[in-house]
Structure formats: structure tokens, C-alpha cells
């Protein structure tokens, strides 16, 4: 089977899962006790105004009909309207999402840059001091509540040492680069605006570093385990036996093999970190989905909640497909079937 066919099949397979997800988010939204319309209509609304609103939001129809409307809306790109801000959900997600994506991506890169070498060192010095140190460190950092560590780091690096900006994506007076992707790092590079690039890199560094810690442990662990496994493979023993330097073996043969399992964990982490970003963003005033999500869930504003859950579902599924593709590139033996 070729790659294109495989991809189409995988994408087709997402559909039932996403339908299931939409049912799930819809049910959660309908769990909401109380009267969301009362909230939307404002304190002085009369019963007629509320009734009109109920019609406007389609809340006067039976549940299955409401669900079908909701589904149809999802496809049309109408993800509903926030009851609280009265803004449409999809444009809002489009506004806030790039900030979260950028934060998460950099965090995953940092976690990989820290975690993979740590895992490699652990495996190379198995059951010796470096192994133990790496193991303790990874467990040590993953055990901190990320939002707490964020406060501490913000104060140390931002306020006390003055090494990094305290919050936000850019200084107030620096206009964001013209939007192509919404990722400031990418957009500024497209414009060849290296100054903005560096400034936004400095802004993103501490938040993404803090965020990366929660992925550090699992990446280290899986890298180590798969390295150990690969190191014990026959061909590695043989190569050692015929005198190929250890370093070359590690980097040329073992790491490549080990990286396949690691890729899975990294991609899983992407989803987790995207969720973790919700907590980090509130600390760093990072204008992403996090603040939006927290606010929506505290105010029982169910349309944005549904929208966010759905967006995360779509992104997560796409990442899974992407991961499988990377597998294929790294390991040509894997057949898409």
C-alpha cells in the first residue's frame, strides 16, 4: 500500500472518532446546570428576550436536533458563539491558538533536546552514576506542579536576575510581525526581521522551558529503554566486536533505531503539553488558548469549551498521523497497511 492511500485511510478513520468526540463534548455541555441563557441575556432581560435568545441559540429544540445543528455548524465552520463575550468561537480559536501552538512546539523541542541526550547518556552508562543522576533529575522535575514552577522561574529569571522578560509574547511597543502563520517566530523569519525573532524567542524561552519539564521524564525514560534494547541487538554486539568505535555505533545505528519509539512518546507529549500550556499561560499572561479556556470553564461558557476540546481532538489526531509518517521515513521497513 502506498503512502497516499494510507494517509487517506487514516484521515478517514479520524472521522468516526471526531464524531464520537463531538457527541462527548456535546453531552458535557448539556450537563451544565442552570440557565446559560439567563447569563447571556443579562440581568435585566425579560422572559421574552430570554425566549428569543433560546431560539437564537437553538436551545428550544429537542436534544438530537440540537446535536445535529451543532454538528452541521462544525462542518460549516460555525462553532457557535461565546455566551459571555458574544464573539464567535472559531475566529477566537484562530486568534489564540497560534500562541499556544508556538509555546507547545518550543517546549517539545526543548524537552527533546534535554530528554534524548539524557536518555542516551543513561543508556550508555547504564546503572552507573550518570544514569542515576539523569533518572533522579527527570523524576525530580516532573513532580513539580508546572504552574508553581512557572511562578518561581518567572520571578528568578524575569524579575530578580532580569535575564528574561516577565510575560507576554512581545514587548508592548513591538508590533507583532505581519500574520502569516500567527507564530511570531516563523512570521518574523519570513519577514527576515531577526530582531523581532530574537525578542520573541527571549519571551518564549522561560514559559516553554517550564512547560517542557513535564515531558522531560517520559522522553528520557523511553529513550533510555529503547537505547538499551537496541544496544543488545546482535548487530550492535557484532559491530562492537569488529572494532567500530562506540560513539559511532551509538550515533549511527543505535540512536536511529531507538528514536522510533521515542518519536511516539514525543508526539504523545505534544498533546499533553498543549493541555499543560493552559496552566502556564495564565502565569505568563500568554495570550493563548489557556486564558480563554480557563475563563470559559469558570463561566460555564460551553460553546468555547466544546470548541477547545474539539480543536484539541483534531490536532491530537493529526499529530498521530504525522507521527506514523515520520516512522515510515525513519524506518523504511514499516509498511503502511
Amino acid at each position: 500500500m502506498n503512502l497516499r492511500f494510507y494517509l487517506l485511510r487514516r484521515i478517514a478513520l479520524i472521522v468516526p472518532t471526531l464524531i464520537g468526540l463531538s457527541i462527548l463534548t456535546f453531552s458535557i455541555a448539556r450537563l451544565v446546570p442552570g440557565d446559560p441563557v439567563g447569563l447571556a441575556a443579562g440581568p435585566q432581560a425579560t422572559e421574552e428576550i430570554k425566549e428569543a435568545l433560546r431560539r437564537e441559540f437553538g436551545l428550544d429544540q429537542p436534544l438530537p436536533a440540537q446535536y445535529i445543528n451543532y454538528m452541521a455548524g462544525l462542518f460549516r465552520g460555525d462553532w457557535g458563539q461565546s455566551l459571555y463575550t458574544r464573539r464567535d468561537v472559531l475566529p477566537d480559536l484562530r486568534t489564540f491558538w497560534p500562541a499556544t501552538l508556538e509555546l507547545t512546539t518550543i517546549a517539545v523541542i526543548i524537552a527533546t533536546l534535554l530528554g534524548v541526550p539524557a536518555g542516551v547518556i543513561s543508556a550508555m552508562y547504564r546503572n552507573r552514576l550518570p544514569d542515576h543522576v539523569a533518572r533522579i533529575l527527570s523524576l525530580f522535575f516532573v513532580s513539580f506542579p508546572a504552574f508553581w514552577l512557572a511562578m518561581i522561574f518567572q520571578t528568578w529569571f524575569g524579575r530578580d536576575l532580569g535575564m528574561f522578560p516577565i510575560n507576554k509574547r512581545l514587548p508592548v511597543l513591538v508590533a507583532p510581525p505581519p500574520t502569516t502563520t500567527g507564530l511570531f517566530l516563523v512570521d518574523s523569519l519570513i519577514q527576515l526581521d531577526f530582531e523581532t525573532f530574537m525578542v520573541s524567542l527571549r519571551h518564549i524561552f522561560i514559559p516553554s522551558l517550564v512547560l517542557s519539564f513535564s515531558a522531560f521524564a517520559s522522553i528520557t525514560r523511553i529513550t533510555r529503554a529503547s537505547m538499551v534494547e537496541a544496544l543488545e541487538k546482535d548487530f550492535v554486539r557484532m559491530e562492537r566486536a569488529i572494532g567500530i568505535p562506540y560513539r559511532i555505533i551509538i550515533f549511527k545505528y543505535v540512536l536511529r533505531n531507538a528514536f522510533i519509539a521515542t518519536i511516539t512518546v514525543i508526539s504523545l507529549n505534544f498533546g499533553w503539553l498543549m493541555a499543560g500550556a493552559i496552566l502556564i499561560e495564565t502565569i505568563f499572561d500568554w495570550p493563548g488558548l489557556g486564558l480563554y479556556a480557563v475563563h470559559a470553564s469558570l463561566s460555564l461558557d460551553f460553546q468555547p469549551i466544546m470548541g477547545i476540546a474539539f480543536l484539541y481532538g483534531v490536532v491530537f489526531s493529526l499529530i498521530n498521523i504525522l507521527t506514523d509518517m515520520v516512522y515510515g521515513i525513519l524506518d523504511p521497513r514499516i509498511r503502511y497497511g
Partner: protein
Amino acid sequence: MAESDKRKTAKRNEARSARWENFARGLYRFRSNRLSMIGLLMLIFILLVAIFAPIIAPYPEDAAGKTRVMARLQPPSEDFVFGTDKIGRDIFSRVVMGTGLALQVGTVIILLATSIGVTIGAVSGYAGGWVDDILMRITDIFLTVPALVLAIAISAALGKGIINAMIGISLVWWPGFARLTRSLVLSLREEPFVEAAYGIGAGHMRIIFRHILPNAVSPIIIKMTTDFGFAVLTAAALGFIGLGAQPPTPEWGAMINDGRRYFPDEWWIATFPGLAIWLMVFSWNLIGDGLRDVLDPRARR
């Protein structure tokens, strides 16, 4: 009949003693793992703190709603080892009094998630066919969205409060257990002793609960242990957002949120509950890490 009964008992005894031997061997390996022993000691310490909290805490009433406005925002001192908060409550007493709550929250979440997940996983793996398909599709749906996002959504919908937060987290935590149990059951289903039990006419429920699951216990326990710390972390996160325990409950996540506004000048308000969470999670992670070595020796060589 009597003959077969005897054989059955013998067989069961044999299985039991084999299991016991495994356990003893594991225990030995666990005890020789210094890090895990440290983790266990830390956990025992935490348990003792939780049990004797009212004795240890100098001002246990501060957890219930006592205020002391004349001593607000005091830095750590002899009277208040961890300082006081915005309304003069002793942080140390509140951290200590909150220990039991954190343990309870973790326990409830893990037990609920395990019982849902194991049941679904076992049924799914044992039944196979369309039952398996449906159950696993449902599991997949839950796995499509990061647990924290879904937990926030469900807890928010259920309403603020520690109980709802626990329910919300449990409802998103079970799929991992379901997946694990299913794979264990799938491999155990083909084992001779299961087929034998089936052959002598044991019911499905009996086979699942008496023959299959006892042999799948170790990996499930590992997962319960490693997940415990993260369950506590997630609950603290909900508390931090404001969806968890409501004031004046001394919930650690909520206490951090409380102290955030006064950070870093009155750093002690947020710092000590944060360290308490860390200690709890770290101890569970150390234990889980050790257990993984013990019960799943392949993972660490």
C-alpha cells in the same frame, strides 16, 4: 468430582505460591532499590503527617475558618514556621491539614479510574468482537483529548467543588487502565489455565475475576502507583484554576493560587504548598519507578 476439585485446589495453590514467590522476589528487588525505598519512606512520612495532622499542626482550627487578621502576611517565624496568609492563617497548619485531603483525592481518583478502566478493559479483551470494537472506540474518543482539557470541561460542567473535580478527573483517567487491562487480558485469555477453567464450566465472570485478573495485577498496580502522583498534580491544577476545593478548605492547589497574588514579596504563601505537592508527587514517582523495575524487569536492565 472430588478428584477434580482436589486437582483444582492444588492447581490454585500452585498458582498462588508461584505468585507469592514472584512477589517475594519482587519485594527483595524493590528493597534493594535505594531510590524507591527513599520514596517509600517519604510516603510513610506523608501518611504519618496526614494521620497525626491535628496533633502536628499548631493551629488546626486555621484549616476550618479561623482567621487572625492582626498577624496577616507574616514571614516564617518561630510562631508560624511557614508564615501566615492574607488573613493570618498559619500556612504550616494548613499545609499539614491539607495532606490528608491530597491523599484522599489521589486515592479516590485512582480507585475510581481503576475500577472503571479495569472493568471496561477486561470485558473488552475477554469478549472480543463487536463489544471490544465499541468499547475501544469509546476509549479512543477519551484518549483523543488531553486529560487535563477534558477534566476541566467535565468538572466545570458538574460545578465547582472538590468532589466534582475528583469525579471529573476519574472520568478522564480510566482509558489508560482500560487499554492496559485489555492487552493483559488478551494475552492471558489464551493461557492454558484459563482454557482449563473454561473447560470445567466456570462462568465468564468467574473466569475474568478469579483467573485472569489476579494474574494481571502487577502491571495494573504499577500503573496505579505511577499515576497516583499525576492524579494529585491534576487535582491541584484544577484547584489552582479555581474549579477544585472552595475556601476555606486547605487544598494545596488553591493555596498556591491564593499566594500567587502575593508572590514574590510574600513568597511563603505559595511556596510551601507547592513544595508539599512536589514531595507527595515525587515520593509516588520514586515508588512507581522502583515498582516498574520490580514487576516489569524488562523495562529496566
